[in-house]
């Protein structure tokens, strides 16, 4: 189905003095439908090869589920552009560990630890994430900064290794309809047009989705008057390897400025603009240059890699499932970039949908399981929009009282640690919790479980690796006295797509972190979903009841 991938030959190179990045391109291959073969009926088609679409394709490929991905372009990222998302949070990194691209991301990306918040000419406070390292139980770091196109590129190369994934480039969907039996697509390619039908369609085509518009679905748009201008640049002599955020920057008319870093020594400077500014003017190269000289001095040497203006906006679909069509990523929800919630939530969408879609496509679960994708990820989007709206309100006080309180937080934060919690320069994306999830078999349901270290076969390993040894299925983890009952649980769950793990035998929790992740003491049983979420726990005395509930859930 695919040509073998050569992962050792990176083609994207950045050259100082050049015109930015040269992105890898992928060949159009004439599909069977245009070779006179009978059009096939596909179980799953994904449209759009961005973070959501590619993550989902890899996840389904890992589960051996046949999937076709249609992308209208033949490359990753935005043609000629450096990047959009630059920061990938722990939950995303855990997902990428499962998909097999985490090591490449860690090798290419940047991990920073010192952050400084400034106002006026001096610092309000600073932090060093290494001092908080013990607070995290995950094998992955809190985040890695790297250009979005690198993630997409690694995902494409991973997908090319997975035989059930059929990537189709230069394939533009021109029509999409559905009836009770199937979704029907018209696809335009350089070799002509064809139609295909599928059981399930995942729309991952981004904010301007023509598929979503074609179904005339309500996205509840909200716009603010806050204006920003991103400038990605490469310096000849770079600033300190730290994240700096100015709430009020003297070199930007006392408006906010973000200074982040990413791979290849490229820096992101994000400037808050006058709400009445002309966005085209502030994005002009000479205006961007002058702004950077005001910040770094007249002699600063740099090259502009990418300029991207934006204004605050949010929108969210009423339902992420529309019959046989599912929406993931920006086409389902949009929020401002604060906290890197756009790209990271698209990755979480795909992670939530992958295992559910696989079980439905394989006939192991009824289609209504997909309603839980809508419930959970729409709740995630609601949380993300709320977080970004609060940051936006802090950075753009709407009246004198809001400015008064912001001044108070800054004045107090200079002296007292408590007030630093109120200074809101963005709250980093984390795994959304689903408190009202319908997938509720017991205590702790809807809570994310971190990828803790485990010992498997006498080797240091982790929870994600344990899942891989069990085909990424739902797992029943039996702790303490319950571990001795593992064989009985396995018998009770006969025929269900799940495996029982005796902790202490099949895997050793050598740092005693796993049970605590579920809120259990030494004894008990926990059901771990394939997306590293808890579906329910029980103390030893109630373990058999939880097992029966799980069996009934799969029945």
């Amino acid at each position, binding site marked *: 189905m695919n040509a073998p991938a050569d992962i050792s030959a990176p083609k994207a190179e950045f050259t100082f003095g050049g015109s930015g990045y040269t992105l890898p391109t992928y060949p159009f291959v004439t599909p069977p439908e245009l070779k006179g073969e009978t059009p096939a009926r596909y179980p799953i088609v994904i449209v759009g090869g961005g973070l959501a679409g590619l993550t989902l394709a890899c996840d389904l490929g890992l589960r051996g589920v046949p999937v076709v991905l249609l992308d209208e372009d033949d490359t990753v990222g935005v043609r000629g552009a450096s990047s959009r998302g630059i920061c990938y949070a722990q939950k995303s990194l855990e997902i990428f560990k499962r998909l097999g691209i985490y090591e490449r991301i860690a090798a290419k990306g940047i991990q920073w630890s010192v952050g400084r918040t400034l106002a006026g000419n001096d610092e309000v406070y600073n932090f060093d994430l290494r001092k908080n390292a013990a607070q995290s139980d995950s094998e992955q770091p809190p985040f890695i900064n790297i250009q979005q196109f690198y993630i997409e590129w690694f995902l494409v190369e991973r997908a090319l290794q997975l035989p059930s994934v059929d990537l189709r480039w230069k394939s533009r969907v021109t029509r999409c309809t559905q009836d009770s039996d199937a979704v029907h697509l018209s696809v335009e390619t350089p070799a002509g047009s064809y139609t295909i039908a599928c059981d399930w369609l995942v729309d991952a085509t981004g904010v301007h989705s023509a598929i979503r518009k074609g179904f005339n679905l309500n996205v509840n748009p909200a716009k603010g008057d806050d204006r920003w201008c991103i400038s990605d640049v490469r310096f000849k002599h770079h600033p300190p390897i730290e994240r700096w955020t100015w709430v009020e920057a003297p070199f930007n008319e006392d408006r906010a400025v973000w200074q982040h870093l990413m791979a290849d020594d490229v820096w992101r400077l994000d400037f808050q603009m006058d709400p009445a500014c002309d966005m085209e003017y502030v994005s002009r190269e000479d205006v961007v240059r002058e702004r950077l000289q005001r910040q770094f001095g007249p002699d600063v040497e740099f090259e502009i890699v990418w300029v991207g203006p934006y204004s605050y906006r949010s929108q969210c679909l009423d339902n992420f499932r529309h019959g046989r069509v599912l929406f993931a990523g920006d086409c389902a929800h949009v929020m401002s970039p604060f906290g890197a919630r756009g790209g990271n939530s698209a990755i979480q969408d795909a992670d939530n949908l992958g295992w559910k879609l696989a079980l439905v496509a394989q006939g192991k679960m009824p289609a209504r399981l997909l309603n839980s994708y809508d419930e959970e990820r729409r709740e995630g989007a609601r949380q993300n929009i709320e977080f970004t709206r609060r940051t936006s309100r802090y950075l753009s006080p709407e009246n004198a009282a809001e400015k008064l309180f912001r001044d108070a937080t800054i004045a107090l934060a200079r002296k007292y640690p408590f*007030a630093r919690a109120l200074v809101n320069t963005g709250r980093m994306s984390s795994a959304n919790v689903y408190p009202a999830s319908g997938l509720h078999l017991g205590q702790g349901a809807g809570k994310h479980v971190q990828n803790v270290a485990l010992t498997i076969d006498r080797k240091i390993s982790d929870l994600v690796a344990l899942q891989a040894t069990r085909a990424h299925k739902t797992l029943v983890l039996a702790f303490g006295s319950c571990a001795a009952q593992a064989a009985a649980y396995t018998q009770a769950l006969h025929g269900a797509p799940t495996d029982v793990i005796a902790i202490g035998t099949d895997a050793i929790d050598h740092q005693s972190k796993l049970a605590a992740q579920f809120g259990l003491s030494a004894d008990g049983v926990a059901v771990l979903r394939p997306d590293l979420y808890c579906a329910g726990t029980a103390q030893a005395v109630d373990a058999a009841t939880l097992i029966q509930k799980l069996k009934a859930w799969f029945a």
Partner: protein
Amino acid sequence: MKLDAHFTDADGFYEALLDAHKDLSAAQSAALNARLILLLANQIGDAQILRECITAAQNTH
């Protein structure tokens, strides 16, 4: 939320509050109050009690 007096020295607190505002402009008083509210809110901490206090203040003007 406590609605009965909880002060160890109600008159003493009130006088200290007035003294802190003495000779301040309206803008300086407003800024002092904002800082004071945030300091006091952190002493309470509990989200539910803080919400009840905001509502009670809104409903007594």
